[in-house]
Structure formats: structure tokens, C-alpha cells
């Protein structure tokens, strides 16, 4: 398979699956302002997914569209990070995931801006501003929850701990990113990511998780059991009416 196609799909799938989870918060958030904010964030993620999947389809050159890629691929063909597909959990988990994921996306898009691939650089140029807001939003909440009440501190710590073992996968290098000169090798982002995330966690009075074990497999299409259900829901109407236009 074409390296550029696979690489673009990885980034697009991350954004698509993240958007699907973020959208689950709409009409279920702790306060109305948060329904609006998470709606914004989900829309940003979905917009990034659409640009990237459209581009992946174009690179592939097989006549597929963004919707073919989103709705008519099976679990094993999705290349997103497992971090993105895990169920939402409570609001502390949600903000832990957003802090981890958006900080990673921000570093990634900052570098991708300089890519020789004009489309990827263009997507990154728009997305980097969006994810800067996501990082800011997550940071504000991690501080409030970490340094709020005893209960919120406990829950924030639990969220940070539960998702930490899914962060290592973000920085895994492989021959594809090493070969593909328009790609960003994520291994180079890890140190700065740890620095940024640690600063927020320290200020929140929580403890940075130390678990050394890290899950992996998403980039090879090996997922948690949760992705299948997420996709069943996402895809079922489109698959029930193959060939239909919406």
C-alpha cells in the first residue's frame, strides 16, 4: 500500500474516532457551556478527519471518497491510536484524554506545517490553531479538577492514570514514517510532550502517572474491543443502504 495513503489515514482515523467520542458528550456535559465547547472541539476534530480522509482517498486514486473510507472499512483497517477509541468514562477521563491527545496533535501539526507535502502542510496549518484551543481547554479543566475538591482531585488523577498506558503509542516510530520524507516521525515529539503534559499535571497538584507498560497495536489495525461497537454505530445507516446518497 502507498505510504502516503497509509500515513494520511493514520492521522485521519485518529481525528475521526476522537470526534465520534467527543460528540457523545453533546447533551450530556456537566454544564451548557461545556456542551458548546465540546461541540466545537468535536467539530474541529471531524473537520480535520474529513480533510485528511479526502486527501487519503485522492492519494489512493481508487475512486473512493471520505465517506467510503469512514463508513465502509472494517475494524482491522482502521489505523487510529487506541487512546482515541476508548469509551469516554467520566469528565475527568475526558479531560485527561483531551490533554494527552491534543498536546500530541499540537506538536505533530506544528512540525507537519513544514512538510514538503502541500496538502498535509495546509491541513496542519488550519488544525494547529484549533488544537491549540483544545490544549488550552483541557489544561484549564485539569487544573480546576486537580485543584478543586477532594473528589475532583481523585477523579482527575484516576483519569490521568487510566489513559497514561495508551500514550506511548503516539510516539512509536516505524519504517513507514522513517521512509516517508513528508511525514513527521512522532518519536521526536515525545520529550517535549512529556515536558508540556508534566507541567500541567504538576500545577494541577495531581501526580504524573509512572506506569511503564504501554499498549500498542492501533497503527497496525489491532484495536481494543471498543472500536467495533463504535464503528457499528457510526457505519450502520450507510451500510444498510449501499450506494445511496445522503
Amino acid at each position, binding site marked *: 500500500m502507498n505510504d502516503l495513503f497509509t500515513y494520511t489515514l493514520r492521522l485521519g482515523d485518529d481525528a475521526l474516532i476522537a470526534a465520534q467520542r467527543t460528540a457523545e458528550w453533546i447533551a450530556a456535559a*456537566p454544564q451548557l457551556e461545556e456542551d458548546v465547547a465540546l461541540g466545537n472541539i468535536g*467539530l474541529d476534530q471531524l473537520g480535520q*478527519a474529513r480533510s485528511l480522509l479526502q486527501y487519503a482517498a485522492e492519494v489512493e486514486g481508487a475512486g473512493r471518497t471520505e465517506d467510503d473510507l469512514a463508513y465502509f472499512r472494517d475494524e482491522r483497517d482502521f489505523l487510529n491510536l487506541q487512546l482515541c477509541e476508548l469509551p469516554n468514562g467520566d469528565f475527568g477521563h475526558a479531560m485527561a484524554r483531551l490533554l494527552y491527545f491534543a498536546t500530541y496533535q499540537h506538536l505533530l501539526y506544528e512540525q507537519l506545517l513544514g512538510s514538503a507535502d502541500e496538502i498535509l502542510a495546509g491541513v496542519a496549518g488550519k488544525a494547529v490553531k484549533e488544537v491549540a484551543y483544545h490544549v488550552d481547554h483541557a489544561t484549564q479543566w485539569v487544573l480546576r479538577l486537580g485543584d478543586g475538591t477532594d473528589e475532583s482531585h481523585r477523579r482527575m488523577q484516576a483519569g490521568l492514570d487510566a489513559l497514561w498506558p495508551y500514550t506511548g503509542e503516539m510516539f512509536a516510530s516505524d519504517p513507514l514514517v522513517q521512509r516517508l520524507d513528508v511525514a513527521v516521525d512522532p518519536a521526536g515529539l515525545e520529550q517535549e510532550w512529556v515536558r508540556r503534559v508534566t507541567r500541567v499535571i504538576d500545577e494541577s497538584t495531581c501526580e504524573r502517572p509512572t506506569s511503564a507498560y504501554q499498549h500498542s497495536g492501533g497503527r497496525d489495525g489491532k484495536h481494543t474491543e471498543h472500536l467495533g461497537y463504535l464503528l457499528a454505530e457510526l457505519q450502520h445507516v*450507510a451500510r444498510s443502504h449501499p450506494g445511496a446518497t445522503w
Partner: protein
Amino acid sequence: MDSFQATIDADGRIEPRDAMPEGYRKTLIRQIAQHAHSEIIGMQPEGNWISRAPSLRRKAILMAKVQDEAGHGLYLYAAAETLGVDRADLLDLLHSGKQKYSSIFNYPTLTWADIGAIGWLVDGAAIVNQVPLCRCSYGPYARAMVRVCKEESFHQRQGFEILHTLCNGTDAQKAMAQDALDRWWWPSLMMFGPPDAASTHSEQSMAWGIKRHSNDELRQRFVDMTVPQADVLGLRVPDDNLRYDEETGHYSFTEPDYEELYQVVKGNGPCNKQRLAHRVKAHEDGAWVREAAAAYAEKQAREQETAA
């Protein structure tokens, strides 16, 4: 109070600092709060389809729409707060069932076509109800409605477009669209409230310039606007008595079953319990988050004080 009546008589605007009769204030609080509650409960039947929207473009449009509704809720609660109440107290009244929201949201969204039908019919009916509110005598409510109506008319076009695509699609898609119209037509007519003869709040609200047209006038306006659009879609309005009257220039139509409306208002609609339970759960699940935010803000304020 003479100045209040003079302002009303001159078709002017009452502002939060102006003197107003207690009944006027209470009526507005009730109406604006119910309107705000309707926006946030209305997020549920449509939010029900975000995860399953059949294309990424439709998913994005629907997410933006449901998000707009949260925004409408926010500025309507803010408008109510200008009358001396708190959003938190109004939410408590919603959660305890003491204040209502629009009955239409107690019907289920069963297929993707329902998202089109809600946009076209429910937002269409809401616009007919709300456009006159842009001239409501209470300034903050009137101004909030200007913005709400702009976004609602955008939503209505999107709903129509969903159905238009379905009606030009496969047989199954077209059947889905017709089924949605069959189910949403009557509840949409009920959105204008009971017939004029049975409407309890109308007369005083008209005198105060809160309401500008009667329920039956607005219902007629909605039917006249909607039937030609159904023709464009190639869908059949489920009313055997629907006729265009050349002389009056209006459609004659069958009145909806108001007994059903009263039952839904009383809490016996298909989704009353589900909608309220979902709202209460979101609120209760979020209590620790709101408490944490308040505690954190207090700590920050204390620290700033100490620093100063």
C-alpha cells in the same frame, strides 16, 4: 406603572430596569424559561443521530446544529436572568417537572429521515412561532429571538435539504422520508398550542405585547407555508381533508388530536420520562465538576487577595 402601559401602548420596549407589573414579569420568566428548556431538551432527539449520521458532511452539520441549540439555551437563560432569576433555579424547576418544555421533543427520532423532518417541520413551526417574538415587548427576549430566528431558518433549510436528498434517492430512502412526515405532521401542528378557544394564557399575553398572533393564526400560517414545500418534495401530507381554498387563499386542514397534546403535556408522551431522566442524569453526573470549578475559582480568588 403608567410609564409601563405607555411604553406598551406605543409599541416600545420594556427593559430590565423599567418598572413592570409582577404578572408581566412572571409570565415572561415562565415563557422564556420554557423556551430555554425546549432548546436544551431538543438537543436529545437530534443528538440521538449524531453518532449514526450517514455521511461525514451530515454528521458535521448535525453536530453544529445541536451545538447551536445549546447556544440558544444559553442566551435564553441569560435573557430570563435579566428578570431576576438564576439559571440554576430554572434548571431545578425543569428537573423537578415544575416547568415544561415543548411537547414536540417527547416524540422519538426513529430514522435518519426524522432529522430532516425535525429541521423542516419542527424548526419551521418554531420559526412561525418565534418571528413575531422578535417584536416582543420585552427587549432582552426580543433581541435574543432575532439571533435565534436567523439560526433556525438556516436549520430549516438544512432539514428540507436532507429530505430533498432522500426524496431523490432510492425507494427505501423515499419511504423513510414519507414515514417521517406521517409521524411528525400532527405533532408539528400541535406546536402552536391548543385552539384559541381553549388557550389559557393568550389574552393577557396579547395585551402585554408578549404574544402578537393567536395560536390558530400561527397554525394556519404554518400549514400555508409547509404544504407547497411538501409538494416540491413529492411527499404526501397525511391529511385527507387538506384543500386549497381559492377564495381565502388558505389551506383548510384537519385539526390535530388535542387530546394527544394534553396527554403529552401531562407527561404521557412516548419520551417524556426518558428525556427528563437523561437531562437529570447529565446534571447530576456533572455536579462534582461544577463543584470543583466553583472551589477552584474560590481558591484562585483567595490567592489573588493574599497576593494583593
